[in-house]
């Protein structure tokens, strides 16, 4: 018995074309002659010794430095938590406004999305630099920076996730004469809560890592200490701080995984 198959669609020419275009584009961006980036691999061979001595120092963390890190680390965690919590609260109405199923009005949806895109397109270091100038060195500029950064991430990712979900219950609610606000408050919000929770927890994790960088411009927390030790070339202290950030990030991830499993 022979099985008669319909002709198999020919997809490989298209796949090949796309793959070829991607490879060509990547190669072209590495050619300085036509304005591509200059990649001087030879310099690695020339300079690796400088880096190697730093790596060697980093490999020998000086744990006697640890007690001096407690207070700045606590400040970082406080900034991370407060920034994430305030952003979480503000993200709820903004996300529901930015999502098609929960806001059928394309004008207001477009306005919210534009604002979020603007917030997202400004690098966090720029926020921190400006805010340090405005409010002075300390935790406040870092906190506001983290808040803005989290808001951009949460609203964009969650509103897109809500867009791609099915929301049949909204049709039933509209058929019963409910307003969009009532349905968002009573149904769409609890229905989308796991999507929110995922990004809120991710924002908290990001905050700890970002605040290490924000210290460079004086925005408080462990980052300031990190920057200071870098300035003194105290790489043994730097590696203690990096290890500490690693531990905190892992702890937050473990905790958020536990929470996520309970929320699902």
């Amino acid at each position, binding site marked *: 018995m022979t099985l008669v198959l319909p002709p198999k669609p020919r997809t490989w020419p298209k796949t090949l074309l796309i793959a070829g275009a991607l490879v060509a584009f990547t190669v072209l961006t590495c050619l300085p002659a036509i304005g591509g980036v200059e990649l001087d691999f030879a310099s690695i061979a020339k300079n690796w010794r400088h880096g190697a001595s730093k790596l060697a120092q980093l490999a020998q963390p000086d744990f006697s430095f640890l007690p001096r890190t407690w207070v700045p680390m606590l400040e970082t965690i406080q900034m991370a938590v407060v920034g994430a919590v305030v952003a979480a609260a503000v993200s709820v109405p903004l996300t529901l406004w930015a999502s098609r199923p929960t806001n059928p009005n394309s004008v207001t949806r477009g306005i919210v999305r534009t604002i979020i895109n603007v917030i997202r397109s400004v690098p966090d270091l720029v926020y921190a630099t400006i805010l340090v100038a405005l409010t002075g060195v300390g935790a406040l500029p870092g906190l506001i920076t983290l808040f803005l950064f989290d808001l951009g991430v949460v609203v964009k990712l969650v509103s897109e996730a809500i867009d791609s979900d099915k929301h*049949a219950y909204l049709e039933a609610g509209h058929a019963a004469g409910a307003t969009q606000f009532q349905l968002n408050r009573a149904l769409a919000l609890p229905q989308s809560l796991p999507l929110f929770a995922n990004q809120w927890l991710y924002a908290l994790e990001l905050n700890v890592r970002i605040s290490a960088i924000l210290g460079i411009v004086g925005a408080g927390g462990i980052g300031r200490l990190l920057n200071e030790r870098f300035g003194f070339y105290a790489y043994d202290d730097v590696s203690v701080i990096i290890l500490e950030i690693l531990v905190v990030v892992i702890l937050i991830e473990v905790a958020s995984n536990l929470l996520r499993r309970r929320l699902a």
Partner: protein
Amino acid sequence: MTNTAHAAGAPASAAWPIRLENASVTYPNGTAALKNVTLTIEPGEMVAVVGLSGSGKSTLIRTVNGLVPVTSGSVTVGPHEVSALKGRGMRELRSNVGMIFQAFNLAERVNVYRNTLVGRFAAQNALRSFFGVASPDDRRMALEALDSVGMLDKVWTRAGSLSGGQKQRVAIARALSQDPRVMLADEPVASLDPPTAHAVMHELTRLNAERGLTVLVNLHLMDLARDYTTRMIGLRYGEVVYDGPAASATDADFEQIYGRRIQPQDRLGAS
């Protein structure tokens, strides 16, 4: 050939009539889903809209509560001219028209109580909506509706963990808590197994008989239309091809509606 003699039970003063006049719906993609449909449904009638998928019956039922606006012609429900309504007026009409769906359309992560309360939203003030606190009246009406479909013991259960038949009964309770004058049902039993399907159809006839509600139910199975409804409207390609009593509709009538021979899957069968 409208047949009002089949209106079930005593005519209830609360029920509303439905009138479509030359109603047409053309979707933005150019599909003409409904073509010049004119029909009158008297208060308290139990009407089946029968047709194959794509015949326009989903569109027809959605013009009644304005979920699908008519492109031309008019739809009148009770005192309301549906095509002229928007905003508050549209919500006022919809609060009087209950609707249940093939996919039940419950919020799965929300409990049965909160899902049922949605039927009271049109009557709820903004402050109560914001804080999510129902008034004692709204609470009572939602719980009574759940009780009348036998779902009161599941009131704190998440909708997502109910069976299909239970979900459809909660959906009916949601519609009943509106204290509606018209009940719409879009393929209410197409996702259910035969015994549950018969139970839900029986529930709809009970609402029609006991509350005197005008009931408009979309079906594609001929025996359900014959056994549970009094009047049948047949749709094919968006046009009314049959309008008459349901019980005495012949196989030939169904073949005309379907536009093909009767097949075994056109019947659900007894349970």
